[in-house]
């Protein structure tokens, strides 16, 4: 009801209550499963990136968390309260849908008036300030705005309710780089001031790289990774060695065999050099590189459930899965492409 209930500072410790926690979340549609026994949590105060190919269940998860979609089974707690679709009123939770639904015939300022009537907490001053900062005309009909401008309106409507949790489904999709940067910067400034937890889904991993401090990778309806971004970076190593070198210790996520060398994505707390028989730089053909976030995500998305990987040509991240038994590799390449384009 008042701003006093909102946490004033950002960055609750990871030991704190999770802002979102799901256990065994399953959503079955007639055309297939969107989520299968999916479990993970996002600690309060984080800016979490939710990544995965189309159909991995990102949107379904966000809609369930927003109380729009009823899960087939499993539980989900949001801000410590269980969510029951249709019954739970989303106070303190903001949601921006993938299609960014707005009333096309209404002007921007009419949307503000409407949102003010529908929410106990509404910061009109913030909304007006944000929209002018984002260069969105208040008197314009929403139907006449560009996709990017509409996204800015949708995110502003969400921010001005001063939510404790924001669920954003592809907020940057189909935005040009200028609008993307502008929106992301404004969003970051507001949420870091309010201490809002954000769960943000995107195809474009490079957009999330510099801003997110938590990463969830969804694949085929399951969370294959869910941890702080720092741990993700510190815990993944790209090992490049001669093709006859033995597998490195630790959790080998992917292995790509080329004509002369082999590349492993290894998940371990320690750099996996020791197991290869030498320290860093030991031997001409053993090298440990720091993978980019793109490479880490793609590795997890192309990982075979069995540890074996088929031989593949040099280069082509994820090509090992492209001739795919499960087709996942094909979709992942699309993601990688989008990341590069961005």
């Amino acid at each position, binding site marked *: 009801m008042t701003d006093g209930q909102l946490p004033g500072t950002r960055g609750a410790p990871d030991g704190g209550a999770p802002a979102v926690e799901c256990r065994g979340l399953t959503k079955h549609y007639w055309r297939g499963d969107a989520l299968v026994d999916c479990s993970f949590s996002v600690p309060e105060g984080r800016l979490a990136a939710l990544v995965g190919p189309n159909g991995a269940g990102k949107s379904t998860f966000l809609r369930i968390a927003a109380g*729009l979609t009823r899960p087939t089974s499993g539980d989900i707690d949001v801000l410590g309260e269980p969510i029951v679709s249709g019954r739970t009123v*989303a106070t303190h939770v903001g949601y921006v849908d993938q299609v960014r639904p707005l009333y096309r015939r209404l002007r921007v300022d009419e949307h503000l008036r*409407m949102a003010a009537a529908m929410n*106990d907490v509404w910061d009109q001053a913030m909304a007006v300030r944000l929209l002018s900062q984002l260069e969105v005309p208040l008197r314009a009909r929403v139907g006449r705005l560009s996709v990017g401008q509409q996204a800015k309106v949708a995110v502003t409507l969400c921010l001005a309710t001063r939510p404790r949790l924001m669920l954003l489904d592809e907020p940057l999709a189909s935005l040009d780089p200028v609008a993307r940067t502008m929106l992301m910067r404004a969003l970051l400034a507001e949420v870091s001031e309010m201490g809002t937890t954000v769960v943000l889904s995107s195809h474009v991993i490079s957009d999330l790289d510099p801003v997110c401090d938590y990463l969830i990778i969804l694949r085929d309806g399951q969370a294959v990774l869910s941890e702080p971004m720092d741990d993700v970076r510190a815990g993944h190593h790209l090992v490049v060695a001669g093709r006859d070198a033995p597998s490195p210790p630790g959790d080998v996520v992917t292995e790509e065999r080329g004509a002369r060398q082999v590349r492993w994505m290894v998940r371990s707390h320690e750099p996996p050099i020791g197991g290869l028989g030498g320290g860093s730089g030991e031997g001409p053909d053993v090298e440990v590189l720091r993978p980019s976030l793109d490479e880490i995500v793609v590795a997890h998305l192309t990982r075979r459930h069995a540890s074996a990987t088929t031989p593949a040509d040099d280069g082509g991240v994820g090509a090992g899965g492209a001739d795919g038994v499960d087709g996942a590799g094909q979709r992942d390449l699309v993601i990688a492409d989008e990341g590069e384009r961005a």
Partner: protein
Amino acid sequence: MTWVSWRLHRTQLLIIGTLAVLAAVAMTTTGRPPMSLAVHDVQALAWGLLFALPVAAGVVVGVTVTARERERFTNRLAWTQGISRTRWLLATLVPVAVVGSVAVALISSIATWWVAAAGNGPRIDPNPFDVSGVVPVAYFLASLGLGVLAGSVIRNEGLAGASAAIAAIAARIVVRNVVRPHLAPVVHLTSAHFPLRDLGPIWSSIPGGSAVEHGWILGYGWVPAGRTTPLPGHSWYSSFRPATGSDIVGVRCPVVTPSGSRSSFSVHSDCSNPAHLHFVVNFQPLSHYWLLQAGEAGIFLAGAIAFVALAAFLLRRSSE
């Protein structure tokens, strides 16, 4: 929230208002209502608007409240704000229901005057009844409820609107023909002779018959003595002039001939026992006008509430 409802449905309400004004102008400038729909173009337009407006307005606004939102996904915006789905439904629905009801009530009161201006006072027979009194408001609200309900099941606005309109029209036809005649006790008048002169029955020629002229005639004809309705499996004879070999209301009678110059008909002596037949007219007198109006309005209002309640239940359960 009232502003929100007005803002979202402004266009439809303005269109309804315009049509209502058109109907009002057509009525006030033409004075007398026609006996049939096609007598005069303007009057026909007025009749058409009066019949169609409550259902059309209700359905169009009703589907906007639910189907349009779901079709354009704006319900995903509305349902993730700080109010419940049911409250959102009522917040957008109730103001337009009130405004629409007031508009329809205004029109139907003008129509009531228009019908009475024919000179015979208010009328209880079906066509004038449908457009006067309080039933138009009830039709509007029931159609609104049907539109809301259809929109909570069918996501496509056009399809939902068409389904709701068909359901509303069907409900009106069924209630008008099957239910309304029995909403008040039917009055039976019996006579030993057929009150016929020239082209039609002259009701005043039978005792108490003047009430029939202002009433709603449900059926008349020869039936066996002791009955007020045709025998099972038979219907009211459709014409005052039975044809040869026809089946007169429940009694097989081979030949009926006019006696004299068609001023009266009598049952032919070949009929097994003419004394076993008497002439009956069943009707709802004008004094039952408000009983029928209240009964029918009650049915449609109950329907409206039930449809909206069911829609609210379905929307609450719906999974986006």
